[in-house]
């Protein structure tokens, strides 16, 4: 008996170890590969210049940059967050603090379903609703599509964060004659770092979206030129330039991928730091 149990223990341990290695190897490979391929094209110019002409015999490798794409992604993510964060947080608050009824359950179910919808479908929806209506790709369409993708993520994580606050605190506050909305604010303040975490993860998630951006914000080789016009984005250039076969464009695609990866990893790092702080007040 004892021997078999020890063997089972050993087997389980080795299986889980192998699984962890299988999970980590591609991650390390991606980080390594993207860094090696991308680092050479990273310079000040990458952030300040427009994309170059393709390399040719006359001009073997005009460097240029993806400044417009960095700008475009920042604008899209910023505007999307301006939509997705408030709507998502408020809907999470409703689900957790006011929605202990049929409506709340319906919204909760909707949120769970929305998270699972492929982002290209959301992109297609706003392509039909906005791009076709106004006959133009636009920053507005892109921001709304990305914001819509954020809402269920932010809403679900906010609701979960609020649910994790012990009910005894709600009762303590209510029993003092504090009004419901003020009690909710207090509960939100207790969950604020988890809520911030959810928002940051949603930002990281949409920063890397490609299909819905192409379907709504389109693409552009120039700087931002208005909310009603198409706009450049990092993911567009990564998608387009990586397979262009033109050396300087391929290099820029890798550099763009590196920048995106560093930003997303940076956000995750911030999340780690924020959540670590959460446990200090016990």
């Amino acid at each position, binding site marked *: 008996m004892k021997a078999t149990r020890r063997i089972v223990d050993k087997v389980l341990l080795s299986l889980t170890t192998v699984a962890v290695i299988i999970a980590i190897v591609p991650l390390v490979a991606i980080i390594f590969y993207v860094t090696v391929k991308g680092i050479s094209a990273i310079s000040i110019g990458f952030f300040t210049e427009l994309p170059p002409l393709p390399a040719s015999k006359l001009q073997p490798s005009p460097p240029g940059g993806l400044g417009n794409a960095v700008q475009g992604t920042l604008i899209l993510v910023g505007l999307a967050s301006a939509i997705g964060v408030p709507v998502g947080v408020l809907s999470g608050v409703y689900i957790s603090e006011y929605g202990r009824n049929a409506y709340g359950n319906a919204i909760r179910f909707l949120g769970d379903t929305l998270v699972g919808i492929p982002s290209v479908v959301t992109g297609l929806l706003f392509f039909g609703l906005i791009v076709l209506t106004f006959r133009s790709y636009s920053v507005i369409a892109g921001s709304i599509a990305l914001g819509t993708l954020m809402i269920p993520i932010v809403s679900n994580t906010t609701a979960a964060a609020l649910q994790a606050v012990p009910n005894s*605190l709600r009762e*303590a*506050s*209510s*029993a*003092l*004659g504090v009004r419901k909305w003020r009690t909710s604010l*207090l509960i939100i303040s207790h969950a604020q770092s988890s809520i911030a975490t959810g928002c940051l993860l949603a930002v990281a998630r949409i920063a890397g979206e490609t299909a819905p951006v192409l379907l709504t914000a389109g693409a552009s080789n120039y700087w931002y030129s208005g909310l009603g016009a198409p706009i450049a984005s990092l993911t567009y250039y990564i998608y387009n330039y990586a397979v262009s076969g033109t050396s300087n464009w391929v290099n820029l695609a890798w550099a763009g991928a590196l920048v995106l990866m560093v930003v997303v990893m940076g956000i995750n790092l911030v999340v780690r730091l924020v959540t670590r702080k959460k446990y200090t007040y016990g």
Partner: protein
Amino acid sequence: MSASNEAKMNAVSLNAWYGAKQALFNVSLDFVPNKVTAMIGPSGCGKSTLIRCLNRMHELVPNTRITGKVLLDDQDIYSQGSDPADVRRRVGMVFQKPNPFPTMSITDNVVAGLKLSGVRDKKRLTEVARNMLERVYLWEEVKDDLKRSGASLSGGQQQRLCIARALAVEPEVILMDEPCSALDPIATAKIEELIASLKEIYTVIIVTHNMQQAARVADYTAFMYLGELVEYGETSQVFESPKQPLTERYVTGKFG
């Protein structure tokens, strides 16, 4: 036991439900002002439910309802125009498990009710915090680190902090649901001493499982069983010459 204008609060034919499950059956009970009333009875008999009906905390649990009336100074707290937040300010509550706000300092915990209801006057808040901490005999123990988190205190200190917090909003009635059950005997003795001093100003209603505690602190005692009020009277009468055989069996420890 009908409503009379001498009582501070009256439960009148009170029934309460959790979903389809009825937890209180036609309970009528008058609470005498400036006295301590103890609610006793076996686990699940509806003591907590009853006192949570007295400050409209019961309705915060989803799918609950009540019928009947609860009068506070002869006004039905469940009438159309009555505001639950106002009711809860007048009828404060202390919970079984101490529940200070973990992100707030000791001082901020005491005045949380005032601050969250919009009081901004710093001087008044500091004054109230000190008065209330003195009132619950906590001031001497914490005066040197009022900035510490309320959650960093011992269990007994936390419970006194919670009592101070309840008193700071100037209630008229204090409900306590087994306030000592999570505490050691010394902390319990301190709270009991405190309860005895509270009745000068407040009407106190306390749920307890501890018969000795009821005998020590309560002027009146109500015995409940399976959601019904079985017996209610002066504590000495309920313990020494109970009218109902069920009460006698309970207070002599034959069941429960």
